[in-house]
């Protein structure tokens, strides 16, 4: 039987209309037409504006009849639309009063905050028509992708190895040797799945893929006249739409299918997808920024405003999303649910997440409703939630982010602890915490080691090669007089600032890189590797390449052969981590023997076995993991011994004795001619009483 709501009840010009449904918000395909639904707390009227795709002038403007407003929601079905060739926006009328925070202006055409596809920047880097009356144009998505039997992988968090990447940087360089039209796109990542598998990572974390405007604040580089872009994209235009310019098929408007297919293919290969999401601010900037969407729809609802009508700026980017307003909270929740359900996304990393815990006047909340809603949401229940647990307004919550048993954290203290120890500052006490999944930060509140996302480098800051090649940042190319980017890098150039022909310095740098990777891969928690660190990617000392669409940012794949030794070491240590559950415990060490093996789960050693030196100036430490305590004693593993000598002199380490019948084998020695072996091919150690560990070297033994 035919439903009666497939028939129009109203007409406007040639358009046939009917009262729509308020939910879902956004534009949805319904029998016979499209349901448009948008809300505003303060608007007095709303008009739907339709364009034929790419047209300069609207095709039609249809005011919502009064009876099509339900509460504060304008909802209407428009029948017989050629919705594949359609773009839509809204005009909103209402109060315009700066001090009261109202910015209504019906002369502006506004993007639907719930738009699932956004046109206007279809091909990366194509200069926009600045006179266009409507820049970022809502389009209608099919949302009918055929997933077959795919679903989120649900890899236990402690078993993850995350690879942080920028979609365009990963394959844009010609040396990626993929099809030209795939370079710098989702399709390009798909082409490189065999590489990711070989590397051994099982999660990719994509820097922002929500639609953004690479031309936001674009300007010529004062040195080279080359255009500087909003390259990283930490500035969202639409939270529900993938970046069109990241899709090889963006010019056909098929970015939704291309990204979904990438997720499906990554899943087939055992690789999860984590999205870096930016809910702390939007692309509309401060009082001088453009009106794209939120500002013209419900400014006062979406943004944190000072009593004088200015934008609070806890993000450092001009405005702050009013995350604990109930309406904004819902849109964030709707958004994440959409990505989890519709795109099968495995997890989210929240940029400047501490902002999500502030109230509308900016005060940190003890029990932030948004963070709680996300933690307990049934659709997000198995998604990884990862907080960048600080913001630009001075809130620093590493170790204290409101977690509800769900939230993991980018562990900034891990990064600092490892870097200091690596460059020889001593700090063995802090280092010991890092290696154990930071129990000092998390155990007291009942949070697991996998709460700690362990990273030494990330997109913010030096690459690993630059961390061992520069004492200071070199950001002149950003055109901000070297004022941008962090000054606290805890880096050490090994004796010369920047590239050098000095054989000794270069050898030391390579060793330091391997030392860092070794420390990362034997730490409890979740290791995260920055794209390209596995083969020595450099940004020439620039620690903030947010604006560079060029070789500073792009991954140069030819470094694979130049730095083959680093790549092999990374592959080996990743494989070693996968092979040894004792490195991936789901709960903290107890420092005691609770399985009757005769050894505590973890024991600490120094140059003398069983005697760790915790003094402030000591630079040498070793630890042993008892294989019988792997995963809390539930699985059996080998014993593992790790000696780290960050002293400038070679030291003799006495090695703890294994149970009889077992022998030490050498998996890695960053100071040796063969720095690592493929797991399970490790040769036995000649002399089991001890070994020389070279200056600034790490040794990893496996007892079996």
């Amino acid at each position, binding site marked *: 039987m035919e439903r009666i709501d497939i028939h129009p009840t109203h007409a406007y010009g040639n358009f046939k209309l009917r009262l729509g449904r308020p939910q879902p918000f956004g534009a949805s395909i319904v029998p016979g037409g499209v349901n448009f639904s948008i809300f505003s707390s303060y608007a007095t009227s709303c008009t739907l504006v339709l364009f034929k795709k790419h047209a300069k002038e609207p095709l039609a403007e249809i005011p919502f009849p009064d009876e099509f407003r339900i509460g504060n929601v304008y909802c209407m079905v428009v029948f017989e639309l050629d*919705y594949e060739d359609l773009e839509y926006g809204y005009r909103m009328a209402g109060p315009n009063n700066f001090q009261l925070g109202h910015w209504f202006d019906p002369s502006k055409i506004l993007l639907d905050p719930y738009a699932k596809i956004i046109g206007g920047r279809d091909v990366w880097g194509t200069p926009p028509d600045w006179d266009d009356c409507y820049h970022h144009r809502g389009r209608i998505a099919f949302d009918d*992708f055929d997933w077959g039997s795919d679903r989120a992988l649900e890899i236990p968090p402690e078993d993850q190895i995350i690879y942080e990447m920028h979609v365009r940087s990963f394959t844009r360089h010609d040396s990626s040797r993929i099809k030209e039209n*795939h370079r710098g796109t989702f399709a390009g990542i798909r082409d490189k799945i065999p590489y990711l598998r070989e590397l051994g990572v099982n999660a990719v974390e994509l820097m922002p893929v929500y639609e953004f405007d690479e031309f936001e604040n674009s300007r010529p580089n004062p040195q080279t006249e080359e255009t500087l872009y909003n390259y990283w994209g930490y500035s969202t235009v639409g939270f529900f739409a993938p970046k069109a310019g990241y899709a090889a098929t963006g010019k*056909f408007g098929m970015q939704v*299918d291309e990204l979904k*297919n990438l997720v499906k*293919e990554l899943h087939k290969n055992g690789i999860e997808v984590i999205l870096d999401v930016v809910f702390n601010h939007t692309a509309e900037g401060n009082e001088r920024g453009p009106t794209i969407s939120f500002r013209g729809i419900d400014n006062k609802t979406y943004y944190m405003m000072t009593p004088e009508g200015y934008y609070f700026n806890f993000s450092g980017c001009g405005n702050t999303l009013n995350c604990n307003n109930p309406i904004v909270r819902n849109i964030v929740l709707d958004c994440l649910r959409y990505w989890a359900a519709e795109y099968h996304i495995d997890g989210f990393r929240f940029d400047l997440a501490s902002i999500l815990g502030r109230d509308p006047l900016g005060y940190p909340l003890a029990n932030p409703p948004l963070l709680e809603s996300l933690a307990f949401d049934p659709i997000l229940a198995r998604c990884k939630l990862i907080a960048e647990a600080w913001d630009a307004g001075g809130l620093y919550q590493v170790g204290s982010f409101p977690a509800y048993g769900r939230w993991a954290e980018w562990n900034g203290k891990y990064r600092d602890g490892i870097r200091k120890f690596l460059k020889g500052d001593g700090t063995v006490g802090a280092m010991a915490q890092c290696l154990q999944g930071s129990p000092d930060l998390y155990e007291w509140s009942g949070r697991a080691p996998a709460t700690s996302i362990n990273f030494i480098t990330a997109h913010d800051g030096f690459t690993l090669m630059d961390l061992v090649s520069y004492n200071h940042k070199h950001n002149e190319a950003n055109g901000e007089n070297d004022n941008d980017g962090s000054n606290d890098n805890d880096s050490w150039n090994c004796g010369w600032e920047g590239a050098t022909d000095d054989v000794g310095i270069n050898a030391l740098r390579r060793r330091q890189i391997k030392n860092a990777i070794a420390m990362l891969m034997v730490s409890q928690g979740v290791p995260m590797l920055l794209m390209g660190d596995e083969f020595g990617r450099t940004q020439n000392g620039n620690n903030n390449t947010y604006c560079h669409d060029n070789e500073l940012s792009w991954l140069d794949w030819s470094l694979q052969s130049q730095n083959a030794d680093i790549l092999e070491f990374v592959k080996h240590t990743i494989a070693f981590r996968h092979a040894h559950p004792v490195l991936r415990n789901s709960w903290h060490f107890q420092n005691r023997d609770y399985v009757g093996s005769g050894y505590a789960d973890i024991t600490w050693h120094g140059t003398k076995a069983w005697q760790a030196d915790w003094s402030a100036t000591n630079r040498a430490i070793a630890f042993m993991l008892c294989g019988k305590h792997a995963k809390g004693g539930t699985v059996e593993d080998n014993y593992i011994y790790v000696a780290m000598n960050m002293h400038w002199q070679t030291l003799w380490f006495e090695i703890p004795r294994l149970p009889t019948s077992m022998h030490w084998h050498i998996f890695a020695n960053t100071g040796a001619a063969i720095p690592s072996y493929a797991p399970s091919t490790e040769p036995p150690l000649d002399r089991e009483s001890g070994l020389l560990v070279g200056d600034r070297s790490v040794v990893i033994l496996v007892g079996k």
Partner: protein
Amino acid sequence: MDITIKSLGEIQIVELVGDIDASTAPEITKQVSDLVKPHSRLLLDMTQVPYMSSAGLRTLLSLYRQITTKEGKMVLVGLNEELIDTMSVTGFLDFFISKSSQEEGLASLA
């Protein structure tokens, strides 16, 4: 959009000429859906289809689903290189048997 339907034994050959998009897809759906019977075998000749939009790709996938539900078989023939690329990166290609010529297509349905 021109649609020519021929029969060769038990195999239906559908030759399509023109772009497949939201405006032409309904006609294809209408005409080709009629051919879908239990165990039917269908060859879609795409040699003269320069472009398929998102709606066009969905039309093909929808036909594929109808046919496989009825335990039939469908093959695409003569897709141009750009279409193959678009279908590959968006995942649509995974569902279809794609051959370069009618002869190969017929062989795969035999």
